C-alpha cells in the first residue's frame, strides 16, 4: 500500500527538484509504477491507449475553443472599454482607479478563462492611469494581480474545464457555480481597496469625475463583453447549448468582435490560432500524463489508503476537507495553478466522493453537487496561491511588466486582497448552499 505514496513523493521530487515538466513526471512515474506491478510491455500499452483515447473525445474540443475565445478576446482590445466604463463610475472616489481595475478584471474574466491572461491584459490598460494619478505601486499592482485571479473562477474558466474533465463533472454546472463566488470576489476586493485607502488615503488619490452622459456612453463600449458573456454563459445556463457548443459560439463571437474592430490582420489571426493550438497541445500532454499517473495510483490503492486513514482517525467529512485545503495551501506556495489541479485532483476527488458530506451540509447531499462545490473551493484556493509568495504567478506577471517595482512591493500591495480571499474561502466552505444555489436552479 505504501508504494503509491513513494510514487507521489518521487513525482513531486521530479517536478520540484529536477525541474522535469509535470506532464512527463506524472507520466513516467505512472508508467514505471504500473510496470513494476504488472509488466513494462503492458505498461507501455496502457500509456499509449491513454494517449490516443484522451485525444479522441468530442467533449474535449471545449478546451481549444475556450482557449481560442480567450485569445481572441485578449487581441480584441475589449479591456480598454471595460476599464473606461468601470473608471467612469468609480474613478472619482478615493482609490477609485484601483476599484475600477478590480471591476474591469471581473468583467474581463467573464469572457476569458485564464488568470495570467487577465492580469497581463489588464495591467497594460490599468497601470498607466494609476501611475499617472500617483497611485502607490503596491496598491496599483496588487489590485491587478488579485483582480486577475478571477479569470479562473468567473466562467468561462480553463481550470474549471480541466477539473470537469478529470472528475467527469458537468462543465456547465461548474461554470454556473463559479458565477456567485466570482461576484463575491469582486465585492470583497472592492472592500479591500476601500479599507486600504481608508487606512492610508495617500495611496489612492481621487481621479476625475465623469458626468452621467459620458458614463452611459461608456456602457455602450462594454456591450461586446456583456453580449458575449450573456450568449455563452446564458446559453449554457438555459440549456440552449452544451458547453462545447458554447465554446464554439464564444470563440466565433470573439473572432467577429476582433475582426470588426479591425484588430485581426492575417498575421494576428494566424498567431492567435497557433498560440491556442500550442496551449491545447501542452494541456493535453499534462492531461495524458495525469491520466497515466492516476490510473496507476488508483490501481496501487492510494484512494483506498486515504479513505482508510479517514476511517481509522475517525475524521468527520468537513475535517477531511479542511485537511485537503491545508495540503493545497502548502502545494500552492510552489506550484502554479494548472499543475496544482492536475497533480491533486486525481488523488483527492475519489476521497471527496466517498465522504459523507451530506451530514455537514444538506446542500452537499448529492455527491455530484458535492464535487461541483469541491471544484469551486479548489479553484478559489488555487486563485489564492496565484498571489501567495514565493511563487505567486500573477505577481510575477506584474513584475515582468514593471521592472522598476520590487517584488516585495507587489506582495505587500496584494496583502489586503489576500486577506479578503481568505474571508471568501471561509464563506464558501461554511455556506456550500451559496455556491450551489445557481447550479441547483439550472439542474432543475
Amino acid at each position, binding site marked *: 500500500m505504501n508504494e503509491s505514496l513513494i510514487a507521489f513523493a518521487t513525482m513531486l521530487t521530479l*517536478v*520540484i*527538484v*529536477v*525541474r*522535469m*515538466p*509535470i*506532464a*512527463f513526471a506524472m*507520466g*513516467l512515474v505512472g508508467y514505471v509504477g504500473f510496470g513494476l506491478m504488472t509488466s513494462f510491455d503492458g505498461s*507501455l*500499452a496502457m*500509456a*499509449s*491507449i491513454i*494517449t*490516443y483515447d484522451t*485525444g*479522441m*473525445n*468530442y467533449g*474535449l*474540443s471545449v478546451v*481549444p*475553443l475556450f482557449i*481560442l475565445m480567450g485569445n481572441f478576446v485578449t487581441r480584441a482590445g475589449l479591456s480598454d472599454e471595460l476599464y473606461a466604463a468601470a473608471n467612469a463610475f468609480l474613478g472619482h472616489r478615493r482609490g477609485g482607479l484601483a476599484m475600477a481595475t478590480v471591476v474591469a478584471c471581473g468583467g474581463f474574466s467573464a469572457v476569458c478563462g485564464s488568470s495570467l491572461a487577465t492580469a497581463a491584459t489588464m495591467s497594460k490598460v490599468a497601470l498607466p492611469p494609476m501611475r499617472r494619478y500617483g497611485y502607490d505601486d503596491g496598491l496599483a499592482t496588487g489590485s491587478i494581480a488579485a483582480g486577475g485571479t478571477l479569470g479562473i473562477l468567473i466562467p468561462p474558466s480553463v481550470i474549471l474545464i480541466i477539473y470537469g474533465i478529470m472528475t467527469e463533472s458537468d462543465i456547465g454546472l461548474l461554470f454556473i457555480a463559479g458565477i456567485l463566488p466570482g461576484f463575491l470576489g469582486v465585492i470583497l476586493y472592492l472592500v479591500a481597496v476601500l479599507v486600504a485607502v481608508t487606512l492610508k488615503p495617500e495611496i489612492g488619490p481621487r481621479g476625475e469625475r465623469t458626468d452621467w452622459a459620458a458614463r452611459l456612453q461608456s456602457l455602450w463600449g462594454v456591450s461586446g463583453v456583456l453580449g458575449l458573456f450573456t450568449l455563452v454563459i446564458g446559453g449554457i445556463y438555459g440549456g*440552449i*447549448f452544451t458547453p*462545447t*457548443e458554447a*465554446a*464554439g*459560439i464564444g*470563440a*466565433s463571437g470573439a*473572432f467577429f468582435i476582433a475582426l470588426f474592430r479591425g484588430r485581426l490582420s492575417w498575421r494576428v*489571426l*494566424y498567431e492567435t*490560432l*497557433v498560440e*491556442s*493550438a*500550442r*496551449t*491545447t*497541445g*501542452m494541456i*493535453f*500532454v*499534462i492531461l495524458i500524463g495525469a491520466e497515466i499517473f492516476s490510473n496507476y495510483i488508483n490501481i496501487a490503492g492510494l484512494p483506498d489508503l486515504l479513505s482508510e486513514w479517514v476511517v481509522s482517525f475517525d475524521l468527520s467529512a468537513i475535517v477531511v476537507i479542511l485537511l485537503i485545503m491545508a495540503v493545497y495551501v502548502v502545494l500552492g506556495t*510552489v*506550484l*502554479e495553478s*494548472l*499543475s496544482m489541479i492536475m497533480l491533486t485532483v486525481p488523488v483527492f476527488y475519489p476521497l471527496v466522493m466517498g465522504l459523507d458530506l451530506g451530514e455537514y451540509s444538506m446542500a452537499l447531499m448529492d455527491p455530484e453537487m458535492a464535487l461541483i462545490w469541491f471544484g469551486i473551493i479548489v479553484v478559489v484556493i488555487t486563485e489564492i496561491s496565484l498571489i501567495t509568495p514565493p*511563487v505567486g504567478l500573477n505577481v510575477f506577471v506584474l513584475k515582468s511588466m514593471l521592472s522598476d517595482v520590487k517584488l516585495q512591493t507587489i506582495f505587500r500591495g496584494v496583502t489586503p486582497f489576500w486577506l479578503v480571499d481568505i474571508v471568501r474561502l471561509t464563506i464558501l466552505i461554511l455556506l456550500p448552499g451559496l455556491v450551489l444555489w445557481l447550479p441547483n436552479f439550472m439542474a432543475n
Partner: protein
Amino acid sequence: MSNEDNNSRRLRAGSSLGANLLVFLQRSLGGITAILLFMMMILTLLDVFGRYLFNSPIMGAYEITELMLVILIFAGIPLASANDEHIAVDLIDGVMPPFIVKVRDILISLTMSVVMGALSISVWHKGLEAIKYGDQSAMLHVPMSPVFFIISVTLGLAALVSLALAWQYTNFRVGDDRRLKL
C-alpha cells in the same frame, strides 16, 4: 544576446539541413493547426445554427470535430515542445550551479525525447493493427488507421524537437531562452 546569436549560428552551421527541416515542419504544423482550429470553430457555429434555425444539424459534425480535435492536439504537441511550453516548476534554478542546470536540462530533454519516441512507436503498432482489423469510425466510416499514424508521426516529431533541444542545451548559458532556436 551574442551568446544566442552564436548558439543559433552554430546550430545552423552544424546541421543546416536539420534546422531547415525543423523550420519547415514547424511552419507546416502551424499552418495545419491554424486551419483545423478555425474550421472547428466555424463547424460548431454552423452546426448549432443549423440545428436551431433550419432544424438540420450538420451530418457527422460530431465525428468530424472529434477527428479534427485529435489531429489539432497532437500537432500542437511538437509546437509546444519547441516553444518550451510544457509547464515546469522553476523553484531552485537560481541557487543551482549553472553546470548542473545545463546537464539537468540536457538529461530531461533526452528523457522527454525517449518518452515521446516510445509512445510514437507504440501508437504506430496500434495503427498497423487498425489496418488489419479494418477499424472505422462509427458514423462516417472513416478508416481509423491514418489517425493513429498521424498521432504516431506527431509524437515522433515531438521526440525530434526534444532531441534538438538537448543538442541546443549543450551550449546553454544562464539566462538563455529555452525555446528551440531556428
